[in-house]
């Protein structure tokens, strides 16, 4: 017998500025289940949530509640329809009391006056259901994030929410707090409430969820029962492509060990960010960093580039001890870094392509040795041609270029300083297929030209095509280094999944 699902989406589609971020996604939530929604950054999780709750309007597709199509236009409308969202950053008022937060806008009144004592009594009862016994008259901000989360959940449930969407609720919680939250979630599921749980902690997924939906690059990869999905397969769903695509012929050169490494990091680390690691980067070699989101890949890159300062360990460049306290130091050493977040960490949107390209070179030369306009034009034109940046107009503000061309301009920024080491964090993310291939070709070319490269990518089949060594990270530590023939998608996936708890 088919039970009508609580919440269902069919063919949900959304594009931003011509880029499709959600492509015909079907999603089903049943009453009383905890449903994990998984995927890497940019997979489309938050877009899916925003489309369901009406925060963002959809291009195509339908949303059904209890089998009936609904058209929610705002978070308020969603709430009155019974769909509540609780975000990682709790969206409440820390200066008001817990009770006031719970009943804000619907306080119990008598003759127009708020009945504070009645409100506190009801707040206490409500929170007791979630196993919380706290002073509800105290300001919400005095309590931990977990209590704030549960207060937000309790408010939503008390406002007769039947679908509860939790967007990374556990990101800033400790183990004990996670347990409190999970207990509350189980209790709600027991009452028949459907819960969508977004997270990137896989052990938590196995600990609490009944069902898993995985998205990748805006597409639905699949929906599985948690109990029947081995962890290895889950990781593969999140990171891998279809197996047929995986086997790509490549030649690893093993000769690298012959000449001394260009940069060596020994027991390099920063407390709370990344455990101390050893890393050797050689000219003409690509080292790939693989791991799940939050495993410490970007943290490694930032440490190597001096964007975060290491608190232990040593760095040696060209055989000499190197100071890496800031990106300035790194740039002086000949390091370049294309960060993952192009818009916030890479481009200066308002400045022209020319200015963006010469920025690092100029910073390295210092204020008193300005590049003349002619030199700037020459450099910009050369790289625009070399990397085929389109449109080929050095005076266009870079913010007006497509993602792929912005990425190429950022590469040009670093190539202009004639770098010795280039760090690329997700160089192909959010880039159309054509530019994608070009950037991979470029990575190979640079490597052949004798650059040392450190590349982070979630596209494992990409990494295996160019990396000479792949370091696998897990839980903010380097755990395995794979070389030569050991570099293939299967072994990387195995290394990533190795420590995950078995499905319950």
């Amino acid at each position, binding site marked *: 017998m088919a039970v009508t699902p609580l919440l269902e989406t069919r063919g949900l589609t959304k594009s931003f500025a011509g880029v499709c971020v959600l492509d015909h996604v079907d999603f089903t939530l049943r009453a009383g289940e905890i449903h994990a929604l998984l995927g890497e950054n940019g997979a489309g999780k938050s877009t899916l949530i925003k489309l369901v709750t009406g925060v963002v309007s959809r291009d195509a597709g339908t949303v059904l509640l209890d089998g009936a199509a609904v058209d929610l236009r705002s978070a308020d409308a969603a709430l009155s329809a019974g769909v509540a969202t609780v975000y990682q950053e709790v969206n409440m008022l820390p200066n008001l009391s817990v009770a006031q937060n719970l009943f804000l806008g619907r306080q119990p009144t008598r003759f127009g006056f708020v009945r504070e004592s009645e409100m506190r009594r009801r707040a206490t009862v409500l929170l007791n259901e979630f196993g919380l016994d706290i002073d509800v008259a105290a300001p919400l901000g005095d309590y931990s994030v977990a209590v704030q989360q549960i207060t937000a959940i309790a408010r939503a449930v008390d406002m007769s929410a039947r679908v509860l969407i939790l967007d990374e609720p556990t990101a800033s919680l400790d183990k004990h707090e996670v347990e409190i939250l999970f207990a509350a979630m189980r209790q709600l599921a027991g009452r028949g409430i459907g819960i969508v749980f977004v997270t990137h902690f896989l052990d938590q997924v196995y600990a609490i969820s009944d069902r898993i939906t995985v998205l990748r690059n805006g597409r639905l990869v699949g929906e599985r029962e948690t109990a029947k999905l081995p962890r290895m397969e889950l990781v593969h769903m999140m990171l891998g492509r279809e197996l047929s695509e995986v086997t790509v012929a490549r030649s690893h050169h093993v000769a690298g060990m012959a000449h001394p490494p260009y940069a060596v990091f020994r027991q390099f680390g920063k407390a709370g960010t990344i455990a101390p690691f050893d890393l050797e980067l050689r000219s003409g070699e690509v080292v790939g960093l693989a791991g799940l989101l939050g495993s410490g890949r970007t943290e490694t890159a930032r440490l190597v580039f001096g*964007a975060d300062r290491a608190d232990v360990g040593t760095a040696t460049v060209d055989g000499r001890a190197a100071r890496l306290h800031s990106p*300035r130091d790194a740039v002086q050493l000949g390091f370049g870094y294309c960060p993952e977040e192009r818009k916030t*960490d890479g481009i200066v949107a308002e*400045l022209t392509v020319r200015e963006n390209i010469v920025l690092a070179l100029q910073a390295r030369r210092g204020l008193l040795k300005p590049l003349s306009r002619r030199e700037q034009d020459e450099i910009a034109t050369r790289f625009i041609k070399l990397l085929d940046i389109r449109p080929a107009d050095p005076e266009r503000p870079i913010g007006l270029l497509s993602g792929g061309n912005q990425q190429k301009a950022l590469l040009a920024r670093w190539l202009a300083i004639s770098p010795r080491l280039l760090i690329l964090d997700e160089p192909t993310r959010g880039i159309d297929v054509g530019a994608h291939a070009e950037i991979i070709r470029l990575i190979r070319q640079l490597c052949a030209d004798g650059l040392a490269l450190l590349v982070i990518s979630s596209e494992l089949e990409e990494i295996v095509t160019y990396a000479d060594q792949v370091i696998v990270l897990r839980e903010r530590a380097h755990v395995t280094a794979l070389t030569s023939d050991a570099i293939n998608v299967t072994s990387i996936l195995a290394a990533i999944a190795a420590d995950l708890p078995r499905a319950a």
Partner: protein
Amino acid sequence: MALRLPRSGVPQVLAFLAILAINWTVSPQFFDIRLQDGRLFGSLIDVFNRGAPVALLSLGMVLVIATRGIDLSVGAVMAISGAIAASLADTHPLPVVLAAALGAGLLCGLWNGLLVAVLGIQPIVATLILMVAGRGIAQLITEGRIVTFTAPELVWFGGGSVLGIPAPVAITLGMLLVTLILVRGTALGLMIEATGGNARASALAGVGTTAMTMAVYVWCSLCAALAGIIAAADILGADANNAGLWLELDAILAVVIGGTSLFGGRFSLVYAVLGALIIQAMNTGILLSGFRPEFNLVVKAVVVLVVLLMQSPRLSGLGLLLSRVSK
């Protein structure tokens, strides 16, 4: 943040010329210029002479705003440097007086820079501290009275002239040139625009954003200190209660009229100075017009609104649309 194409400066120049033309109609002798005691004399000269302090302030302010900051303390810094200069003028040689007054400006700039660049306090809050406390410091120096002086060397800064050009105008022109050389002759301008456009990205490109931010606040305070000396020299005394009062707002307005966005990034020194002149041309025009003083602020607000509307990207888009339709 809207992406803008490089500005042309046409709206600013047009606005300035239009206001001068209006001034000429309300006061036919507006463009009359003669020599008085070896110094150019006339209403047009007044525009430049009276506009000099705000123009100086806007030179520093435009750099601060380009880094996505703001400096509310410039009026108070003017009061401090003027108070110091006036107190020392009759008892110390000019180099000492200047060094003390500009030195005070330097310290003020370092203080603001420390709060903003090193401690990461929001610029509007950080500089508000000195805006409030600075005037108090100036009042302590003058003990609440107007400290007058007669030393001719310092008087020159207000009433002197270079080749007939009033000293405040000459000094401001000189500072504009120095700032242009400092900013556009080196890579500083690009670095400031990059820092203001995206500080995180610039830092990751190896730009020393902290030092950059520090430098612009110091320069801003130095310009303010110089403006304070001129303001004191102009009235032969330091009026700690009123010197530079609310001029920070005029300076910010001048920068905005000059087309630099409060969101930082692209900036123009010349148009910021032109912005200051637009404001002063308006003030002078109002004074010459014989309007009742109750209308001063209303007239000023309307003119500023018109100038800003002329620059609005949406409105220019609308204008383009209209011209197409009419064709």
